[in-house]
């Protein structure tokens, strides 16, 4: 009689723990899926930022800004003085 009571209690405990474990597992799987989604979103965002950065750094845009905003221009060959080690840097 005592043994069967003990077994009964163990049975109930095991049944409850099974249910809890399942619930816990569902919660964790759901969390995992959410984290995965966030990771995908972050990766997408990163790619968007890389694309944006690349557009902002594009040579075309830099040239446009240099010419229009900063009023810069390409030097002519007459404007360039070439220095050579054999010319002796500092001295004339």
């Amino acid at each position: 009689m005592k043994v069967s009571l003990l077994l009964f209690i163990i049975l109930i405990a095991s049944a409850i723990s099974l249910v809890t474990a399942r619930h816990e597992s569902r919660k964790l799987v759901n969390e995992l899926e959410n984290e995965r989604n966030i990771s995908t979103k972050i990766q997408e965002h990163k790619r968007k930022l890389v694309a944006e950065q690349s557009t902002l750094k594009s040579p075309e845009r830099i040239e446009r800004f240099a010419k229009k905003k900063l009023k810069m221009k390409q030097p002519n060959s007459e404007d360039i003085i070439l220095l050579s080690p054999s010319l002796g840097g500092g001295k004339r």
Partner: protein
Amino acid sequence: MTAKPQSVLNIRLPVWRARLLVTLMFLGFMALAARALYCQSVNKDFLQAEAEKRYSRTKSLIATRGLITDRNGEALAITTAVETVTVNPRRINFEGISTEKLSQLSNLLNLDTDFLKKQLNKKNKGEVYLKRQIPPSLAKKVMLLEIPGLGLKTTYKRYYPNGEATAQLVGITNIDQQGQEGIEYSYQKTLAGKSGSRRINKNKLNQVIEEVATISNAENGAELALSIDRQLQYVAYSEAKNAVLEHEAKSASVVVLDVITGEILTVANWPSYNPNNRSTFKNQAAMRNRAVVHQFEPGSTLKPFTIAAALEGKFVTPAKLIDIEGGQLRIGRRNIKDDHFENNLLTVSDVVKTSSNVGTAKISQMMEPTQLWETLSKSGFGQLPTHQFPGGARGVLRPPESWREIHRATISYGMGMSASLLQLARAYSIFARGGTLVPVTFERRSAPVEGRRVISEHTARAVLKMLETVTHEGGTGVSAAIPGYRVAGKTGTAKVAAGGSYARGKYRSSFVGIAPVSNPRIIVAVMVEEPSGSYYASVVAAPVFRKVMEEALKTLGIDPDGIDLDREVKRYVAPGPV
């Protein structure tokens, strides 16, 4: 009143009532048991399938297409998420939307209000696409309008930050992310990756509660680093564009090669198109990568190969005098003429310097056709390209057995055979590398590469020396000279063949050059097709070469090897007005 009061408990109920109750309960339980048995065994498969349909889903795992970068890791093509606005007309209560919201929506999506009304009224459809591929930031604003029935679908789109400058090179994908042109096409397998799928169970709230099985994992596409230098590509592209606009030409192409590694640093063309705007994809001419796909008669830029073949066969020496007979040579019924004529006797070196057709033809007459053919063929002319670009031109070089005398003469100065600009640029590597032909690639390589020997080192040096005189006083390519550097190169001005004969007034102007001569690092090839007005290579192609080569030398950090000390010192002492 002696009667004993009857207690309720003492009421004796008829026995049949209890029995009936027990029987009924027993029957009830039996019915339940029978039903359970039926569901569990007989009808099990059907019920389980039905249940699964309600909670189980196959989730597809999308593989992201790989990034294409230039040699320095700058993005050339990148996959970005875009949203598609969908609407379920059945769920939308059309009257419930205020006109204000509707006009806001039409403003945001840049769609006509009448069109919107029509789309929202398609009651027979489950889902209608309102607008495809809009940026996520805009999609957020649309959703903030809180119109019921409006939904978003995330899809992916290729974005090309450099737009027109790299358009024909990088190519495009179709709407399903499959490579259609250029690098996107030829590296489709590498870039695409593999999509996967996973079986999951969902609950009523659409939350994932169980992962049943992963059928296959998604593998993202690999990143691809090209040999291209984005900065240099842009400069070459804008110079090609400027040349076309300035000379009212049909098209222009520029190729830049690294002599040591065989990497293709630049392939630029004008006209071009915007790869980020599908409505510009109609112009087929603009979508071709002319520098790689288009084959043309190279003209005088081929002369150095004839000279190399003659030097190699010891038929001539650089100083040998050639009589150009007044700049006219008659072969059969054809007349070969020189554009510039000053002197009857030219050295072999001067034949190159002044680009004499007659001189080159006479030198070719000293050799057997096979000897010239061998040098050309070993230099890659008429050979199938080994690089990875789709549709790369092979060029035409007829077998020497079918050459008649006139063919040997015309081929010696680059007519009656054809090649792509990339082939031509690559062939020049034999002069830049001391006689070996470099294998070219579109992928970043960065290590020196072995080439196949075509001519001896001695011959290569001799021809390079002659090519250097072209950019000196009296040569045809003076406008290609770069202060501070020693530059070798060759001009080419040729009539354009059209329908079996040469069209009047239609020319092709080209220039191929090497720098710095003391230790060659870069080859730049330029071709401008059908310039109006002045068509000489010295005026049209050489200046483009100079600008692109200057930029290339700067980009690769190559030290000047030809500083004119006197000139610099004079300028340093007496600087001009500031």
